[in-house]
């Protein structure tokens, strides 16, 4: 006799069977490829979540794309990419735990951490466990000998800052410059680097000690005394994307009419919502593959990212690169898949087409001038100016 209970039971059994068959089907399809684990240790929660989230989502988007199109061929094997993630909450202790987790899982290539202290903290773990990691942090000691396992994933402020200030001095008549930074290691070290660069250019530094708590919501009291000094250029050293529109808006509302710049990557939508037309003219070091120079592959990446996560983040124009470099270097030397010493050897001579830029741009490792060894990803140094909801390229530079 069929009653309600037996009907529900049959439906439940049917559902479980269907799921089981589907799971077996999926796993057998994926079993044809080996698995390559690539790690991410960075901040994906808290006030700085935007930095790490754009990182990890770039990796996940690219990995899903690669897996969907059959995986990546390295040597004689084809691999599906599995992104292993760990949120370090911008805490060095958790970053160490994250790197230890990567070591336990047999991961040899890790993207992150996103900040200076986290990147410095994980160094012993990475070196002891044969992990190459790609921080978005600027301390030179991470990339100079005897260190050799860290590879800077972007342009450092001491590389972009002098270029920006020089451009603004020569083209916009900047003479007086003021710095303001969050009271944290990254922004403070970026401020110090900026001050040195400004001094070297002979600029008049009218403010360099002004700082704020990173969780400040109202910047009017912070900026009131700085605006009164009437600098030609206000540098928001190492500013988090969440704080940039608030600082810009507060400065403009206080009547500041000079230029505003930063050396960190920003997001146009965030600036538009938070500062509106006040953000016009704001200069930042933008993504490495902006619309003007983006290839069709980059455009497809943006489409896939948007489809996967609902909204694109302009910071990913730079953060798309790390995974690509790892995979292309492994393709160039398959022995490096479990041996980072082989990876390091390959870095010195590595060159591959840059899929994210128009023309014949190349992927290669740089950093000889800044670090004495090739421990930096070569990404274009695109200096942007925000205008009415979008970034416009001011100039494109490069780093050795």
């Amino acid at each position: 006799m069929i009653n309600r209970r037996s009907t529900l039971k049959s439906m439940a059994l049917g559902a479980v069977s269907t799921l089981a068959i589907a799971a077996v089907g999926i796993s057998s399809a994926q079993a044809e490829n080996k698995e390559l684990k690539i790690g991410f240790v960075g901040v994906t929660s808290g006030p700085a979540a935007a930095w790490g989230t754009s990182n990890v989502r770039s990796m996940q988007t690219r990995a899903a794309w690669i897996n969907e199109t059959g995986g990546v061929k390295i040597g004689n094997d084809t691999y599906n990419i599995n992104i292993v993630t760990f949120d370090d909450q911008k805490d060095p202790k958790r970053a160490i735990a994250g790197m230890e987790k990567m070591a336990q899982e047999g991961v040899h290539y890790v993207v992150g951490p996103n900040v200076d202290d986290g990147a410095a903290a994980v160094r012993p773990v990475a070196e002891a466990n044969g992990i190459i990691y790609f921080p978005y942090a600027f301390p030179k000691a991470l990339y100079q000998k005897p260190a050799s396992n860290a590879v800077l994933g972007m342009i450092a402020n001491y590389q972009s800052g002098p270029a920006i200030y020089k451009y603004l001095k020569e083209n916009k008549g900047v003479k007086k410059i003021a710095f303001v930074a969050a009271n944290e290691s990254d922004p403070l070290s970026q401020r110090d680097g900026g001050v040195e660069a400004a001094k070297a250019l002979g600029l008049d530094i009218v403010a360099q000690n002004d700082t704020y708590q990173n969780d400040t919501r109202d910047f009017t009291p912070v900026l009131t005394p700085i605006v009164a000094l009437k600098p030609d250029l206000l540098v928001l050293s190492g500013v988090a994307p969440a704080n940039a529109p608030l600082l810009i808006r507060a400065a403009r509302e206080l009547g500041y009419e000079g230029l505003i710049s930063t050396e960190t990557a920003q997001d146009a939508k965030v600036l538009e919502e938070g500062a509106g037309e006040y953000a016009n003219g704001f200069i930042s070091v933008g993504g490495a593959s902006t619309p003007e120079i983006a290839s069709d592959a980059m455009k497809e990446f943006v489409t896939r990212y948007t489809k996967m996560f609902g909204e694109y983040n302009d910071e990913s124009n730079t953060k798309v690169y790390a995974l690509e470099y790892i995979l292309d270097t492994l393709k160039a030397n398959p022995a490096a898949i479990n041996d980072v010493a082989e990876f390091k050897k390959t870095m010195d001579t590595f060159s591959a087409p840059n899929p994210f830029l128009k023309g014949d741009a190349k992927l290669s490792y740089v950093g000889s001038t800044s670090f004495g060894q090739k421990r930096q990803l070569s990404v274009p140094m695109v200096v942007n100016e925000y205008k009415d909801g979008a970034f416009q390229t001011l100039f494109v530079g490069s780093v050795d």
Partner: protein
Amino acid sequence: MEQVIANGLYLGAQYALIALGLTLIFALMNVLNFAHGQMYVLGGFITYTLYGQLGLPFVVALLASGVTLAIIGALMEKFLFRTVIRRSHREESTMLLAAATAFFFDAVILLLFGEKQRGVPKIVKGVFNDAGIIMPYDRMVVGVLAIAFIAAFVLYMQYSRVGRAMRALAQDRVAAQLMGVRVDRYSMIGFAMGAMLAGVVGGLLVTITGVNSGIGGPISIKAFLMVMIGGAGVVGGAIAGGFILGMMESVGLTVLREYGDVTYLVIFAALMVFLSVRPNGLMGKPWG
């Protein structure tokens, strides 16, 4: 100096409004609501979605923020805090529960609204610039609204039946119960009101400072600071604490700017000394 005072008064008004909801919940239930900042963030995101994204009138969005958070607060009290208070004899159980809800809200907000800083169009454009004071009109509107909300809240607590019942509960829970005050009912209303205040101030301030999923914790810490200065569970204390903190911040950031970020160092040092002298804060006892 006029600008510094104006900045301090504006900051104080917004801080006081943030602290009110926290102190109300503490007064009624002896619960330190660690999720207060997350409730503020949720209120901000609701206003962002309705006003900034869907284009509904700002007042509607603000009301929706308040009502939604009031419902969430009532449900939290009924199904979480009431149960824990009944079953546990240890006060720290409610603190752990509050911390857990804070983490839960953090995760949910990040999932629902993403990692980016969000902002909405200004509710009033233009900047007042006269007599040495520069103040955008929208800040003036928000400052006035904050003071109006504070006044309305104080009057409601003073003269309404619900307010009197809640004050009785805060003064002596057992005596109030013996006098016929329905403890469960008014605890739930109080928690809902506290949460509603957090939602309203979040919705109000999203027009000035925007909102992002990571600011809940820091907002809670600042609110605790104000409550500690004024005296936990004392409405007047929360208001005083808000204005004192706002003024200290404004003056400190101007006077001490040459020495780096020492303003909060000085504030915390002063707070330690102050609390060692007056451990119950300025007003020091439940209001009544």
